[in-house]
């Protein structure tokens, strides 16, 4: 039997009588925390004095699960980490396994991988834009971006049958070739997308209120960003030109032309602009890949049972939509990894949040959670 709560007589009067700072538990059930992030806030009026992210509400022991399954069965686990960017997770994991086993991916598979990864980048950024805008109070971009994201997800569905947890890559190549007519549909979407991006930018980029809410908010100086190990658009927003696709090209990114946008002030607005330009660059990459898509096999010759050598270890990181997503795998001569550690961009970018929201207002906090672009599935794993 549950006891009713004891009610102190003077609760309402004593609650804030002699304290200026208030503790506020922001989340895990809060519309703006993008899942189950909890922030312990100490606030003075609306101003945040201190913030402390509490994570772990979505912990599923993914890294342990990796050890229990053979290399090729672990790909679905990666889908469920950053569940809005499954393709890039797949790509990072299979890339690590390929390095570990010395598999050489055929050119057609590499090209299709780039297309899938860039489509995923666009879809992840669209979702980010939608939630970021709705956090700041602009409701309409949400529906516009979801309209386009829907078509993107249809493309994924046509390719591999899944829309979110794609499981669309295998060590050594790809599970399927592109279905008939897929490239045409993809090209049609890519032709549409720049116009749609203009549409979103028309609503936000020069909007006075949008600028007031983002310019100069959450400034992350480049040194601080590097100290925290922040990667991806967060780092580039601070003006550091670091993109693994350029710095350590993988899967043939050195064969396509694109630019890496960087911000100047390191504020929320710059990170917004960087991501908007990245989507346009992704369109550019996909167009190039669709044009030069080579013929040939989509799977490398690989052993029937994939085993890593004893004490073999590898780290392979790629540029995911949110930053560097990397896998550190240790083999012990069995078909299962001995240890598989993930370098999740969301988790590491989240560490900078207390730094960003020092002295900010509650309203800024939601903008800042939006601009870090975290997915709690990846933070907690």
């Amino acid at each position, binding site marked *: 039997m549950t006891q*009713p*709560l004891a*009610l102190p007589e003077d*609760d*309402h009067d004593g609650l804030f009588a002699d304290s200026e700072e*208030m503790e*506020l538990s922001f989340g895990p059930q*809060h*519309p*703006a925390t993008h899942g189950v992030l909890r922030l312990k806030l100490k606030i003075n009026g*609306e101003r945040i004095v201190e913030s402390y992210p509490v994570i772990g509400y979505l912990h599923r022991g993914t890294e342990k699960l990796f050890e229990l399954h053979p290399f090729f069965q672990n790909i679905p686990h990666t889908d469920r980490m950053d569940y809005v960017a499954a393709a890039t997770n797949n790509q990072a994991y299979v890339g690590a396994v390929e390095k570990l086993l010395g598999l050489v991916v055929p050119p057609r598979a590499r090209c299709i991988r780039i297309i899938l990864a860039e489509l995923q980048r666009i879809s992840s950024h669209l979702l980010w834009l939608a939630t970021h*805008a*709705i*956090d*700041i*109070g*602009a*409701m*309409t971009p*949400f*529906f*516009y971006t979801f*309209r386009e994201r829907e078509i993107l997800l249809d493309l994924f569905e046509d390719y591999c049958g899944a829309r979110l947890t794609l499981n669309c890559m295998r060590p050594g190549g790809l599970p399927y070739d592109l279905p008939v007519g897929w490239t045409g549909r993809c090209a049609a979407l890519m032709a549409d997308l720049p116009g749609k991006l203009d549409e979103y930018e028309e*609503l*936000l980029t020069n*909007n006075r*209120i*949008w600028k*007031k*809410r983002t310019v100069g908010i959450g400034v992350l100086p480049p040194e601080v960003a590097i100290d925290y190990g922040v990667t991806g658009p967060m780092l580039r927003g601070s003006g550091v030109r670091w993109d693994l696709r350029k710095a350590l090209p993988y899967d043939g990114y050195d064969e396509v032309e694109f630019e890496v946008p960087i911000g100047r002030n390191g504020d929320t607005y710059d990170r917004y602009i960087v991501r908007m330009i990245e989507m346009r660059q992704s369109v550019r990459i996909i167009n190039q890949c669709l044009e030069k898509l080579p013929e040939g096999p989509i799977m490398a010759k690989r052993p029937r049972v994939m085993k890593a050598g004893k004490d073999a270890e590898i780290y392979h990181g790629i540029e995911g939509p949110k930053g560097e997503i990397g896998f550190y795998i240790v083999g012990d001569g069995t078909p299962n990894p001995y240890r598989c550690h993930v370098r999740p961009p969301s988790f590491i970018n989240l560490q900078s949040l207390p730094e960003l929201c020092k002295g900010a*207002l*509650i*309203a*800024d*906090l*939601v903008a800042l959670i939006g601009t870090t672009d975290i997915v709690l599935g990846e933070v907690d794993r």
Partner: protein
Amino acid sequence: MTSLIESVRTTVGDTLFYGAVSPLVKILVLLFLMILPLIAYLTLAERRILGFMQARLGPNRVGPWGLLQPIADVAKLLVKGDSIPLRAVKWAFVLAPCLVVGPAILVFAVIPLGPRAEAGGLSWFVTDINTGLLFVVATASIGVYGLILGGWSSNNKFSLMGGLRSAAQMISYEVPQGLALVGPVLLAGTLSMVGIVEAQKADRFWYVFPQIVGFFLYLVAGVAETNRNPFDLPEAESELVAGFHTEYSGMRFALFFLGEYANMIVISAVATTLFLGGWLRPFPNVEALAFLDPVPGVIWFALKVFVFLFLYIWFRGTFPRYRFDQLMDLGWKWMIPVALGNLALTALVKLLVA
């Protein structure tokens, strides 16, 4: 119709008729045939119009074009469990929604939907008091108590912050709103709502033309007063969950909702009356448009109100939300000085012309 009114009048006698029967009937008609259905269908209109703006459909399953949706909503809200948090201050928690919705509806008493009675008919307003506008402003400002009480009594930190935000916001924006309203009053020389429209008829132009600055100030302040986007900070759902009404459910929540929409209509109706000539047709001074005269005044009034309501919905589909300190900046540093300047200019011109 006229004969029916006449027969009732002769039966009960003039005093009783004009003192009790006619206002009572008008109040009932106004409340149950106009305001409440208008609020209900405003929610539907908002959802449908936002839907069209946002590449989606909006509610369209209940009845043709979703026309029965508001009724379904009300039925749902009425049968929903009504929970009061254990640690809430009960009397305030129960009182708060009433304090929001009551004054909002009360204001309609002095809003003229149409002209005065011609011989033997009824006039298009419940009452015309000589301090009508003062009554509107005073009554409307009671509503803020509801929001503060609701936010405070819920014993929820998010509600409390929502309540505090609404207190600061609504009190701040009442100042430029009041100052903007003085412009038309100066021009008309009366506080009576009917009198102001009649003055616009006599002056042969709508007051929006000489008072364009005041009109925009009133519009912006009005959006802030009703806590609508881009000034919807007290209930900013991404920051404060649902702000002051986080803990409310069922019909109590619906009352807050009702109050917000009633306030939207009030602000629109007052703006129509003071700036857009109330029930007058467009350009009352242009003879070429005289063919519009047979259209009843109430139609013009409704059309103008709908334009404002559409504007409210349009804002919601377009703008992000202001931050709290930016909102205060806008109110105190821009709108109040501009309103004061506008007032001084209006007074000066009035003095020179008269």
